[in-house]
């Protein structure tokens, strides 16, 4: 069982094609859907609180936080081919971490809790990656997915059994997050804060993935051995992206804890890990916007359907997921985005390269 040929990903030659100057110029001439899509979503997200009712804005804030969480999973699975079935571990640990900060030390300042949550996610992911990914034997995808899943399951069990962490009930009534002396409660204010963080992290990830580092990642997703032969330290690359994704999940987790006002064991366990896999596969792994769209669609449908069809909604979700995996392995995003644009280009922008060439 090797990590190559997962079937969801495009074949390697597509990437090479996108890099060759001839194809690149043809590519540059076409209308690009991706930036338009991104801009349209950003505008829609910016004006949403102005037209939506308050309780829907609160729900939309939660969706945005989950989008951030989905981005973190997309980074590891969609770009580096690491199937992390325990992504909720970092989300939940950060959530519990900031909840404890708030409960035991009365710390609620955004400038303390967000970095703390991010750091918790980063360190936890780095440690787990150090164990699962580094070492003499290269780890198989199945081993990594099993290891991460076990991590999430173990954390869930321990949190349930721990009196200090509130057991089954979790930690209720966390104080609101503060900026200076201003208390941030649910509503448009919180919404715009989350949106700003999401956009920032989205752009940073986009920049990171379009750099040489991103190219090496995409290469190792396609053919790990080949990248290793080119002299890259494959395991280190994987560990780095895993830790970064853990940090993003940590940011999302701490935002989630303060937004909901409480943390409970589902945040740590298999339930949340499953959710994030659903989001990303639905929208389309390997594109950042796919993760965002997937989250929005799944959560939107769930909001709309769960009132009337609460019992059968999870079944519908499972069926939809199965259909997407079977017939649209690239996710819903592949309906509007061409293969070439989905893969994109890497390194310095194409324009400079064309000018430099004689």
């Amino acid at each position, binding site marked *: *069982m090797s*990590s190559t040929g997962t079937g969801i990903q495009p074949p390697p030659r597509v990437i090479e094609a996108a890099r060759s100057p001839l194809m690149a110029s043809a590519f540059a001439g076409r209308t690009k859907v991706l930036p338009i899509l991104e801009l349209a979503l950003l505008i829609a997200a910016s004006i949403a609180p102005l037209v939506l009712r308050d309780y829907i804005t609160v729900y939309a804030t939660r969706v945005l936080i989950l989008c951030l969480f989905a981005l973190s999973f997309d980074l590891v699975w969609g770009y580096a081919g690491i*199937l992390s079935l325990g992504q909720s571990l970092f989300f939940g640990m950060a959530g519990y971490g900031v909840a404890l900060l708030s409960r035991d030390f009365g710390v609620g300042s955004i400038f303390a809790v967000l970095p703390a949550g991010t750091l918790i996610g980063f360190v936890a992911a780095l440690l787990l990656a150090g164990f699962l990914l580094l070492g003499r*034997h290269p780890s198989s995808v199945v081993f990594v997915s099993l290891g991460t899943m*076990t991590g999430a399951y173990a954390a869930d069990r*321990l949190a349930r059994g721990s009196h200090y962490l509130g057991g089954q009930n979790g930690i209720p009534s966390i104080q609101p997050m503060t900026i200076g002396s201003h208390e941030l409660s649910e509503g448009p204010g919180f919404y715009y804060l989350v949106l700003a963080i999401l956009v920032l992290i989205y752009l940073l990830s986009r920049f990171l993935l379009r750099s040489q580092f991103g190219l090496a990642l995409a290469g190792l997703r396609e053919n790990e051995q080949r990248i290793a032969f080119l002299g890259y330290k494959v395991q280190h690359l994987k560990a780095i992206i895993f830790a970064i994704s853990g940090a993003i999940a940590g940011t999302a987790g701490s935002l989630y804890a303060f937004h909901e006002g409480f943390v409970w064991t589902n945040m740590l366990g298999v339930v949340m890990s499953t959710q994030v896999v659903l989001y990303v596969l639905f929208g389309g792994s390997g594109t950042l916007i796919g993760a965002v769209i997937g989250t929005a669609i799944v959560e939107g449908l769930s909001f709309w359907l769960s009132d009337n069809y609460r019992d059968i909604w999870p*079944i519908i979700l*499972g069926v939809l997921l199965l259909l997407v995996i079977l017939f649209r392995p690239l996710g819903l995003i592949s309906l509007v985005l061409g293969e070439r644009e989905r893969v994109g280009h890497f390194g310095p922008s194409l324009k400079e390269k064309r000018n430099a060439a004689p």
Partner: protein
Amino acid sequence: MDTLLIAMFEILSFGAIVVLVVLGLGIIASMMGIFNFAQGEFVLLGAYVTYLVHSVGLPVPLGMLAAPVAVGALGFVLEKLVVRRFYLAPIVAMLGTYALGLIIREAVRGLTGGLYVSVPEPISGSITIGSLHFATWRGVIVIITLLVIAASHALLAYTSFGLRVRASLENPQLARASGISTGMIYSLTFAFGAALAGLAGALIVPVFSLFADLGIRFLIQGFVAVMVGGVGSFAGPVAGASVIGTFSAWLPWLMSPVIADVLVFVLAIIFIKFRPQGLVSGRGVNR
């Protein structure tokens, strides 16, 4: 001394349950290279069929006979419709079977109303040896497990069907060229693995009672056991399941159950990290 004997019986019977659950998972993983994430839900479904038969007033043993047949048939259909599209992409197979499992789990949750439902033991009471009492049903599970292992091994090692399965595993092209319908073999193997899970679910439902998340716990346990034992052989998963089952039942006698539960998994993951090939390396079915 008495406590020790009781403890050993407990450990043995729990180990047998784990082996029973893992056997089907191991056969599908070893023979077909597919990590079936819906296996836990096949166990759940077996338990549910037993409950269903019981709830319409028929005897429980009848339900236990019906469960492997029903789940095996479902496995056959699912393989034909869904799983066979995944053979070239084992990772996608994990996600696809995961979706299948989600559907089954949520369907059962809807059907049981999210409650814990219990099914009585078909053979209740206990056997008394000297001053010791052993639950009869747990003893029956141990015996059935041993029979099932022996029968599965015999099926794969000594029958012409087993020969075809092993041939399809070893070299699919050559098997096809020799006139073996590998597609049918894969369907039957998957159905067989599913039926074993169904049987496991049927036998353990009196012990654990039926609830929708019954499968998840066994899924992780099963995967860990298969990896510890080693993928690719018949003996591997059985050995792995025995080890995991023994530890899972033994450690709670020494420490708090929560810590024990987690510790087993963590130790297993560390073991796999340093010995990826598992306890039993090698492929195929030893005769």
